[in-house]
Structure formats: structure tokens, C-alpha cells
């Protein structure tokens, strides 16, 4: 993860790149770019986390203590945008960069320069998103986008320059995602090792392939929606203004046509990764490979036809409500296939519980809660109570923190030995796991109940009967937030494994590791698989 660990001289490899910062600016190497994606994601994870910790501290007690509602509204929305677009998605792209070539026996990504561009678009986009906070301090504008990440019109038409910054940031992030997706698709279609048919592709690569197609299908819709928003704001169009013949709900349709698949965009790479980890630490092959691949495809297809369940309360006609309810419920079937296969992969294995395995198992249990509460949220009548309440907040954090972030952590702990050449500090990793899983539940379990009791989301202050649940949630969030410093420290320690005296990782760092990356030394040479392996 640093110069030292990917230094070229150790492995007599033909790396020739400039030193210092130029190496990182100009690199076209998938490993370098993967590392940059992952470090960027890690930094933004802390940025987004700090924002929400401030929010949680404000919500510790009723009354306004720390901030005014304006800033509160900015923090919740930017937190979500940062976590989704600048932490989870780049982390998944980092995995893709590092692992897809290693796992399919390719020498690099197919489009290395586009790869470099894809990464370097991210820092300016993140800057655009957060800059309005700083500008406001100097009296320019009234802060960042304050509409929540959903940018619903007409609130976003009314907003200040933060909305424009967010729109341009989304455009840039979207371009970056599409470039990354094209790269993944081209790489998987063209650079597989001889003999690796599509149905021998690692599950991880399959998960990413579906993600890439979903991104290409839906990001342009989001880009279109925010562009319409931009012209409504500045050029007198009325897409979302009823007085001019437009419709505010049109924005919600467009946004969620992107927004719902986005959930699977975030999760599919991790659903692809989990079976590898389970198989490795159960010392048993992946169960139901074909079933999982078909489920990925089914979920990908279903994800683009269920969007309106995100606004059941907006007043849709009855046939639409019924259609979106039943189609949403049907997602539970392919998802159940995945859960079945995950558990069947462990069944009758020879399990050991190293840090990545713990994270993978924690992922399954907590993501199970997200899936089951998602099933009841699909019910239109019950949704009228859940919607816009903390019940939904809890639900999607079970999906995106327990499913998303903990999935990323699973991958990081699983592959760090491969990337750095040193085994992780197991004790520290396990401590990180237990702190995370306990404080995560402490944070979000009360939110289910406070939502059922009637607390709406996105409010800076609340009625007295919600106080105790919020206090517990804030305590949980603070522990959860600060525990993540252990994660950063653990990564640092592993990257500097020699200095900390960590054991060196063998090529097959985990004894049960079966996919192609484990055939290479740890860390792999700067250019790997120059001669592709042959798959029988």
C-alpha cells in the first residue's frame, strides 16, 4: 500500500516508472491505480464518517446544541453522497483494479490510460462536493447541498450554490464510474486466461460485471436528471415545476431509476467477494456457482424495474403501487439463493475464523436483517408507516454499512496479505471486528424502534419521547466511528509489515485460497501474468 511494499526491485521485475508523485499521477498499472482507489476510499470514509458523527452528537439530546438546522441538512446529504460515491464505489473499483486482472490471469486492465483518468477524476469531484462548506466560511454561498443526497426538486431548485457544486460533482463522478465500468467489461470479455470460459469466471468478477452493466445503464439517467435540475435552476426550464407544465415527481422517478440499481451497484461486487472468502476459510469449494451467477443477473434485471418503491407515499395510482410492491418482493427470491449458497458453502466445511471470515459472517447476518426488513418495506400499506422514518434509515444502514462497508472490510483483510506481502495482525483485526459489529448494532438497532415510534428522518431536533433511543444511537455511533481508526492502523501496520515484524505472506496466504491470485507471490510483481496461466 506504499512505495516500500510495491517497490519494483524485490522481484526483478521490468517496472520502469518515474519516482515520487509523478509515478502516481501518470501510472497505468492496475495495482498502483487500485491502491490509489482504495486509499482515496479510506480517506473519504473518514471524511463522511466525521460528518455524520457531528450529526449524531447533535442528536444526542433534544434541542439544538452543536449546529443550526442549515448545517445539519448539509451534513446529512453530503455524508450520504461521500459515503456512496467517494467511499463505497471507489473501494469496489479499487478491488476490481487489483483483483480482476489477478483473478482472471490478465496482465493488466484492458484500458490502462482510461483507468488512470477514471481515478484522477475522483479527487476534483470530491473537492467540488465539499468545497461549499469551506466557501461558506469565507462568506461565499450558504454552504453545501442541503437537500439530502436525493436532491429532490423543487427543494433543490430552491437551494444555493451547493446544489450546483453537487450537480457538477455528480457529473464527474458519473464519468469516472462509467470509465471504470467500461474497463471492467472490456477486461473481463477480452483478457481472460486461455480456457477460462465465462462460466469459469471467478464469482467476484461476475459480481463486478453485472455492476458495470448496471452503472452504464443507470448513471446516464442520473446525469440527465441532474442536468434537467441545473437547467431548471438557471436556464428557465420547468421540468420539475408544475406551474410550467413539469412535475416534481418526475425527478423522483428519474433519480430512483438510478438510485435503486445503485444499491446493487454497491453490493454486487461484495456479494461476489463473499463466496471466495467463505470457501477459503471453510476449505471447501464455492457452493452453487451457477445459481449465484444467475441470481446476480436476475437481481441486475429486477433492480431496474422496481424503483418506485422509494416513493410509495408520493401518491401513485393503485396499479402502480401493486406492481412495484410485487416486483420488489420478488427480489427476495434471487437474494435468498445467494444466502442459501453462502451458508451451503460453509456447511460441512472445515472452518477457521480469521478476521476476513469473521467479517464475512458478520456481513451475512447483518445483511440478512437488511434483506428481511427490505421485504416488509416493500409492502405498500406498512411502508406508509415506515417511509421517511428512522426505520428506513436503520434498514439501509444494515444494507450499506453492514452489507457495504463491512463487505469492503472483508475484502481488505482478505487481500491485504496478497497486496502487501505481510499477514495482517489477527488480534487487532478481531478487535476491530468485534468493536465494529457491537457498536454498529448499538447505533442502528435503536433506530428501527425510534422509527416505528414515529420519528421522521432528517430532522435536527426531535420530540422528547425519542430521546433515549437517540442517546443510545449516538453512543454507538461514536464507538463505531472511533473503532475505525483501528482499521486504518491495521492497514498501515500491514503495509509496513517489515517494520512491525509481521510474518511474511506466502503466495497462498490463506491455505484454503483457490482462485488464481493465490498462485502468484505475495506481493505480486509489478507486472503479473505476463504469461497467462492456462485453465483446464
Amino acid at each position: 500500500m506504499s512505495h516500500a511494499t510495491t517497490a519494483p526491485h524485490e522481484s526483478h521485475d521490468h517496472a520502469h516508472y518515474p519516482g515520487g508523485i509523478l509515478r502516481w499521477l501518470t501510472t497505468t498499472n492496475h495495482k498502483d491505480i487500485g491502491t490509489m482507489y482504495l486509499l482515496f476510499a479510506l480517506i473519504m470514509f473518514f471524511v463522511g464518517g466525521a460528518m455524520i458523527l457531528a450529526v449524531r452528537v447533535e442528536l444526542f439530546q433534544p434541542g439544538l446544541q452543536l449546529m443550526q438546522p442549515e448545517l445539519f441538512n448539509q451534513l446529512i446529504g453530503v455524508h450520504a453522497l461521500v459515503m456512496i460515491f467517494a467511499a463505497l464505489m471507489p473501494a469496489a473499483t479499487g478491488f476490481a483494479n487489483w483483483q480482476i486482472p489477478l483473478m482472471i490471469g490478465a496482465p493488466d486492465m484492458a484500458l490502462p490510460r482510461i483507468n488512470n483518468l477514471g481515478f484522477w477524476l475522483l479527487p476534483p469531484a470530491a473537492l467540488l462536493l465539499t468545497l461549499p462548506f469551506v466557501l461558506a466560511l469565507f462568506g461565499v454561498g450558504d454552504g453545501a447541498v442541503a437537500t439530502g443526497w436525493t436532491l429532490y426538486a423543487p427543494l433543490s431548485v430552491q437551494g444555493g450554490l451547493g446544489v450546483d457544486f453537487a450537480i457538477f460533482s455528480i457529473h464527474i463522478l458519473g464519468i469516472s464510474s462509467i470509465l471504470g465500468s467500461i474497463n471492467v467489461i472490456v477486461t473481463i470479455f477480452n483478457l481472460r486466461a486461455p480456457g477460462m470460459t465465462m462460466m469459469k469466471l471467478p464469482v467476484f468478477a461476475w459480481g463486478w460485471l453485472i455492476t458495470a452493466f448496471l452503472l452504464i445503464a443507470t448513471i446516464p439517467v442520473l446525469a440527465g436528471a441532474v442536468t434537467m435540475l441545473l437547467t431548471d435552476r438557471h436556464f428557465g426550464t420547468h421540468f420539475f415545476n408544475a406551474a410550467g407544465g413539469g412535475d416534481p415527481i418526475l425527478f423522483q422517478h428519474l433519480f430512483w431509476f438510478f438510485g435503486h440499481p445503485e444499491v446493487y451497484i454497491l453490493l454486487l461486487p461484495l456479494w461476489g467477494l463473499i463466496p471466495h472468502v467463505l470457501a477459503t476459510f471453510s476449505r471447501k469449494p464455492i457452493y452453487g456457482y451457477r445459481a449465484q451467477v444467475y441470481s446476480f443477473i436476475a437481481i441486475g434485471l429486477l433492480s431496474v424495474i422496481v424503483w418506485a418503491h422509494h416513493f410509495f407515499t408520493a401518491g401513485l395510482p393503485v396499479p402502480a403501487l401493486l406492481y412495484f410492491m410485487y416486483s420488489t418482493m420478488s427480489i427476495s427470491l434471487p437474494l435468498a439463493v445467494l444466502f442459501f449458497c453462502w451458508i451451503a458453502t460453509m456447511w460441512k466445511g472445515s472452518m477457521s475464523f480469521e478476521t476476513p471470515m469473521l467479517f464475512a459472517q458478520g456481513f451475512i447476518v447483518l445483511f440478512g436483517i437488511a434483506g428481511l426488513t427490505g421485504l416488509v418495506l416493500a409492502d405498500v400499506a406498512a411502508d406508509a408507516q415506515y417511509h421517511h422514518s428512522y426505520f428506513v434509515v436503520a434498514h439501509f444502514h444494515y444494507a450499506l454499512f453492514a452489507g457495504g462497508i463491512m463487505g469492503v472490510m472483508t475484502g481488505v483483510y482478505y487481500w491485504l496479505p496478497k497486496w502487501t506481502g505481510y499477514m495482517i495482525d489477527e488480534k487487532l483485526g478481531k478487535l476491530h471486528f468485534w468493536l465494529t459489529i457491537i457498536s454498529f448494532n448499538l447505533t442502528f438497532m435503536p433506530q428501527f424502534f425510534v422509527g416505528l415510534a414515529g420519528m421522521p428522518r432528517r430532522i435536527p431536533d426531535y420530540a422528547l419521547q425519542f430521546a433515549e433511543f437517540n442517546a443510545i444511537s449516538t453512543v454507538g455511533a461514536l464507538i463505531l466511528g472511533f473503532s475505525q481508526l483501528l482499521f486504518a492502523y491495521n492497514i498501515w501496520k500491514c503495509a509496513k509489515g517489515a517494520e512491525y515484524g509481521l510474518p511474511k505472506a506466502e503466495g497462498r496466504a490463506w491455505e484454503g485460497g483457490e482462485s488464481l491470485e493465490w498462485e502468484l507471490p505475495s506481493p505480486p510483481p509489478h507486472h503479473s501474468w505476463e504469461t497467462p496461466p492456462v485453465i483446464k
Partner: protein
Amino acid sequence: MKTNPRFARTRPRTAAPARLLATAASGLLALLPASALADYTWNFPTPVTPIARDTLKIHNEFMIIIGILFAAVFAIMIYSMIKHRKSVGHAPAKFTGPTGTLQWIWALVPFAILLFIDFVIMGIPAYHAVVDMEDTKTKADMVLKVTGMQWKWQYEYPESGVRFISTMSTPRDQIANKEAKGEHYLLEVDNEVVLPVGKKVRILLTATDVIHTWWVPQFGVKRDAVPGFLRETWVKIEEPGIYRGQCAELCGKDHGFMPVVVRAVPEPEYAAWIEKKKGELAEAAAGADKTWSKDELLAKGKDVYEAQCAVCHQPDGKGMPPAFPALAGSKIVTGPLLSPEGKLLKDSHVDRVLNGKEGTAMQAFKNTLNDVELAAVITYERNALGNSKGDLIQPAQIKALR
């Protein structure tokens, strides 16, 4: 008047299964002593409409179903984690899919069960609930029109012409922690909306600026108020009482301070209340025809300003630029009042107050304030908050401009 049990902080009568779930959840919150959690509201507040009762029933059933699914699936996983571990010397099997008929049955039965749960056990009651919930038109006894605006609700009874604004009445000092918080902190309003019990009320919703959502948890009703469109829902309140809720869609700065308070009363009491409200409106309308003194206008204007304007432009008129401009020394406020012929000047102070400014939070107050209130607040803004134009506008002049 019966107080709402939820706000008296007693535990609602939840169904046994819900209590069971609550116990399970407190197990997850194992870090806390269970006794400290005993008084918490674990489930929906007590329902008072047929829809809310139905929703609670469905919700409780669903929670049991998903609770069982969760327990069953993870019992299998935990069993496996205990039995099939390396440290107890379990040798790994090699299978990668179902082998033999028995295993195929094992693999397929869960999906048959899930299919049945999704589309029969959950799907059929859900269908009936949706149809019922959307049935706003049959046998409606009366109509209530709800208009959301930043950051208050307007209620209108089309049959009787009664119309008023309802804003939060919690003092700002309580929010800023300068004063002890009252029992109904953030969930109290100046004008409660009154509805008769036992009547099917068709509720029409719209908004003037951004999307708001009208939500009263005990009614089981939540519906967006979309600017430029009418949405509808219905309630039939079964028990008299005061029911509290909030705006549920992020609608800007004071989204958290936009409560809904409904007082449900028996029919005769409701009729009497409507008559009283009608009288108040007639009185206010009569006020528009008399000539007001400047002092009267300023006194009235101060009240209106503090209720309607101060939330954005601030009590001292300094505003919160750039979103909410200052009125003190503002070019618009200190500009000419009307044209020499008594006509409305475009982008003048009066125009701005009456018609608002599109694309901003400044709304068209002619829709919500009466002539007296408008004349008073305009006069006030021109002669207070650090401005001293010395002129005034009469309610009759506002009436002529409409």
C-alpha cells in the same frame, strides 16, 4: 379530552408477538439493563383509524415472519459454525451443489416457502390494505384540504370556507436549550386542526413551494403534499383525542419544526367549532373595510411578522444572507409602496409580500394571510426593524390589489 397514551409515555397496547420481538431486540441491546428499556415505545403508537389498525396488524405479522426466517436461517449457520470447524477436526466436504433428490428437495423447499410467504401470506393482505388505503372517494363524509408550505400547514374546510394556518408553537428558547422543554416539545401548534370522530374525512393535499409530507402516526396515514398537484388520502378517527405528527419529507431549514396536531372531537363539538371559526373569519374580513391607525397596524404587524416572517428574516430583520435577505435597510422594503395611481409596482415590497419570489423560499402570502394581516405586516416592515419610511398601507388598498 383524552390524552394520547403515547405521549403520556405509557406503553401502548402492543400485540403479544410485538412484545416478543421487543424482548428479542432488547437481547441485541444486551449492553443495557432490560429494566431501563421497559417503558420505551417498541412499536407503532396506538392506532385510532381502521387503516392504522390494519397496518399495525400487518406489521406485527410481518415481524413474526421475518423473525422466524431470521432465526431459522441463522440457527443453521451457527450450528454449522460450531460443528464444521477446523479446530474440532471436521474434514471439509467437496460438494459444489445439490447431489441426489434429497438434496434438491432441501435446496428447493426454502424457495417454495419463500414464494408462498411473499405472494400469499404477505402479498394477499397487502393487496387488500392497499386498495383500502387508496379508497378515498367512496362514502366520504367531508373534505379537508391540507396545504404544506415552508414551514407550516394550511387547513381548509371547503364546505364551510374555514381556512387557517397552523404553525409550531414551541418557543425558540426551548429549542435553544434556554428554557425547560415542555411535554409536547416540537409537537404543538397555535391552531390545531379539528376533525369529527366517526366520519370518513377525505384529505386533499398540496403544497405551495416544495414537497412536504403530512404524517400522523396514529392515523397510519402518510402522504406527500406536492406543489402544483393534488394528492389524497383519508382518515376515519375512532376515538376523540389529540393526535400529533410531523412533516416527514425534508423541506428545507425548518423541516423539523413543522408539526401536525389534530384534535378529534364528537360531531356536535366539531359543528360548534366550525361556527366559531366562521365568526372569527367574518370579523377579520370586516376589518378590511375600516381605516386602521398606524399604531394599530404596527401592533398587529408585529404579531404577524413574528409568526410568519421571523423564522427566515429573523426577529431583528437582519435575515440570514444569502438564502434569507435582510429586511433592515433592504432596497425593496425601503422602495416605493405603490405607483402614484395606487397600482402594484413589479418587484416592489408589496409585490414581494403578496406574490412571493419564484424559486426561493419567499412565498406568495396573499394566499395565506388576510388583507388586514398583509397591510399590517407591510406597514410594520417599513417602519420597524431599523426601517423608518413613515408610510402605511390600508387593508382596503390590499383588498383592491387582489
